[in-house]
């Protein structure tokens, strides 16, 4: 009886420990436990410049979603984004790929528009801005083209 009690207690502690570990991993990894809350929209970028699946999507610096997937479509980057339920994106909102800090990770910033039409689930954010390639800009305006 006693041995059984001890084993039961140990077992329960282990299970509790594993649950805590799991919770910690999920929280730290910022995964969504249920994964399918909110809705998806997509945008086409001429260059996704290092954006990854799992990258943040922000409005005014606030996390509103995550990048679900990035695929090549017609030589453009098709970025599918999962947005939290209550977030409304206007038809003329602009999605830009920016960098956290100067050399940090890439994320998508959505700047709200002024249209009264809202982009529905599965639809497209039409206005996009690829990341500005600083190196290219500098070289173009300092050195010009060699031709």
């Amino acid at each position: 009886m006693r041995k059984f009690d001890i084993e039961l207690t140990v077992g329960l502690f282990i299970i509790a420990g594993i649950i805590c570990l799991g919770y910690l991993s999920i929280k730290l990894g910022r995964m969504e436990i249920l994964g399918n809350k909110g809705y998806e929209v997509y945008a086409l970028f001429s260059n996704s410049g290092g954006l990854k699946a799992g990258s943040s999507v922000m409005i005014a610096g606030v996390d509103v979603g995550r990048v679900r997937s990035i695929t090549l479509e017609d030589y453009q980057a098709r970025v599918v984004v999962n947005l939290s339920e209550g977030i409304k994106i206007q038809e003329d909102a602009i999605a830009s790929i920016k960098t956290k800090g100067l050399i940090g990770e890439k994320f998508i910033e959505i700047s709200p528009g002024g249209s009264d039409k809202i982009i529905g689930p599965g639809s497209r954010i039409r206005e996009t801005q690829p990341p500005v390639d600083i190196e290219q800009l500098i070289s173009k305006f300092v050195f010009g083209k060699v031709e």
Partner: protein
Amino acid sequence: MGRIILNAGIASFLFVFLFAVPVRAGEATEKIKQTTDKILSIISNPALKDPARAKEKKRLIREAVDERFDWEELSRRTLARHWLQRTPEEKKEFVVLFAQLLDRTYWSKVEDYSGEKVTYVGEQIDGDYGLVELKVLTSKNTEIPVFYKLKKKEGDWLVYDISVEGVSLVNNYRVQFNDIIGKSSYRDLVKKLKEKIEEKG
């Protein structure tokens, strides 16, 4: 630096350039060409070169631009969510101010035009939206990619945004206007715009 690029690009947009090489011109591209050809002809019109007629010349160019640009759409997109909060009078006022701001800001670039070459790369039409891509070759031999974004309104293609080197005009002003309104107020933005317009004469 961004502004310099934008300025160069915007200056170039007004002139489709005598040496523009047409590439299977689509509907939207045709419209852009029409406007720029019109402006070019005004500029190269010997009768209008007389400095006494400078005002008239400017007015004609402005009219040609007005035909192709959807100032209301541009205003809506730059004010963004603040547009929805404006009264009809405020909206009307803003549309005029914004057009004047762009006019004052970029007119000097227009006057500086010196024959930069433009190549039409192509266009994409998606329902009522059109994207015209062109490349401007500057005197320094750098190629600047310019995109015109157009929307079909009542059968005509009108410009609602221009992007130069991947930077959009609407986005540029949207961020700035949002900042000003956030820090002070919409009336303050209007005041600032009026000041800027005055400043540039």
